[in-house]
């Protein structure tokens, strides 16, 4: 993405002058305050929305997109929900069944295939939502604050699972969050966004190798990386690109 901007019909600019490059196999997280246009960024990348300025190139042919809400269909069972995207993409029935079984086991929902979403906890619903995207074996995985509504413990568990998933598969991930700790724990690179109109004000690479153990969160180096990101978040939008020492 270079110089990408999106201005809405009412004149507000959600994002402006965005430059972003995500390479295959990277886990890039965008952190920023609420309302800075993080979700708009993902909508642009996914093709759900089109930029009003700038140019972008995205390999979208195998895209997985997990929204802030689980957006499960309440009238379908967990199994039928997880099956949905494969159904829309025309995957044959037998193949669909095989893949659904596999991802349900992967996210630990194999015992709940027949349950309706209303009977699940928030964390389980998010797992079902993840499973639904994984059924299509995505190469580029977009996650829009997927764990924002979960409690701290569940969120950490889901983060551990996501890291394991990323380590196992050849995924490219673009993740959006406002939690600095989550960003550091998950990503290989963190981009920091300014308040609206959102621009990238800094970039921090995270040196820890994958797979990452849960204990990583308590390493002193983890704290130092998090501190650098927090400092960037506090830089006023106009200050631009320089990274504080």
């Amino acid at each position, binding site marked *: 993405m270079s110089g990408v901007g999106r201005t809405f019909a009412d004149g507000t600019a959600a994002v402006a002058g965005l430059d972003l490059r995500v390479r295959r196999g990277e886990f890039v997280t965008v952190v920023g305050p609420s309302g800075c246009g993080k979700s708009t960024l993902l909508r642009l990348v*996914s*093709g*759900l929305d089109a930029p009003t300025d700038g140019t972008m190139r995205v390999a979208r042919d195998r*895209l997985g*997109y997990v*929204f*802030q*809400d689980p*957006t499960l*269909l*309440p*009238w*379908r069972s967990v199994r039928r929900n997880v099956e*949905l*995207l494969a*159904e*829309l*993409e025309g995957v044959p029935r037998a193949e669909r069944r095989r893949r659904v079984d596999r991802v349900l086991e992967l996210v630990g929902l194999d015992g709940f295939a027949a349950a*309706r*979403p*209303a009977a699940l906890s928030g964390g389980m619903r998010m797992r079902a939502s993840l499973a639904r995207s994984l059924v299509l074996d995505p190469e580029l995985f977009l996650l829009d604050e997927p764990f924002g509504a979960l409690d701290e413990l569940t969120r950490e568990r889901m983060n551990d699972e996501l890291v394991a998933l990323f380590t196992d598969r050849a995924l490219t991930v673009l993740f959006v969050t406002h939690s600095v700790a989550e960003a550091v724990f998950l990503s290989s690179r963190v981009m920091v966004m300014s308040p609206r109109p959102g621009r990238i004000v800094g970039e921090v690479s995270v040196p820890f190798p994958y797979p990452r153990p849960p204990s990583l969160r308590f390493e002193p180096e983890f704290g130092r990386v998090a501190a650098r990101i927090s400092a960037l978040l506090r830089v006023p939008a106009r200050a631009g690109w320089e990274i504080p020492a």
Partner: protein
Amino acid sequence: MTAPPEVAAVTVPASSPRVRAARGRLARPVPPLVTFAVFLGLWYLVSDVVLDTDRRFLLPPPDRVVTVAFLDPVNRAPLLRGLALSAAIAAIGFVIAALIGVALGTAMSQARWVERSLYPYAVLLQCVPTLALVPVIGFWFDFGFASRVIVTVIVALFPVISATLFGLQSADRGQHDLFTLHGAGRLTRLVKLQFPAAMPALLTGLQVSATLAVVGSVVGDFFFKQGAPGIGVLIDLYRARLQTERLLGAALLACLLGVAAFGLFGLAIRLVTGGWYGSSLDRPR
């Protein structure tokens, strides 16, 4: 001999959830029954105490209504024939209204211009007094079965249109985005997302429409006056002859027909959406 070992009696405490649930089920019909008893009491009070014998025909007591209108076979026969006719008109009118209403509502949901060009007239149709339409429909289609069905359709149509339109718009943006991302066409979106999401609203709309169809069939019949007598014509006849017992009997039958339609849809709503929709509404009041 030693005493047999004491068997600990397992008692369910009176306040256990199961007992409370059972008690709740038993207690459920109590409030409406009390209301009914009070209503009957007031009715008897007016019939037997307030009205003197000469004016008792204005409101005969409930038992007289039952004896005269329902237990006397001579009176019962025309009432049941009228009920059958009105029920047939209501049912046919309702089915036609449901088909047209769902079709129009779906068309409106697909294109803004269709909605803008049709919806105001649907509202207008809903607002036209039935009384004003009856003579015109009578001129065009005669005063028989077909005209009565048409009046019923007009009366029952609007709730289906608005419920369909509202229901089809009730899927949220995230769910639509998901379908957009994975290349779903209009039809797939309609069948797999919008119609299932519309079911609670649509069935409630059909429930309202079904009771309106009963009202429409009786009111249309009442105004047409000619042709085979349904409940409406009978009501007019008994009114003219001051046969209040039969008049009230006819009204009661029309009412029961409406309640039956309502109940049938209540059941359908529970069967279709109970598994996923109703559960979220089970909050304490």
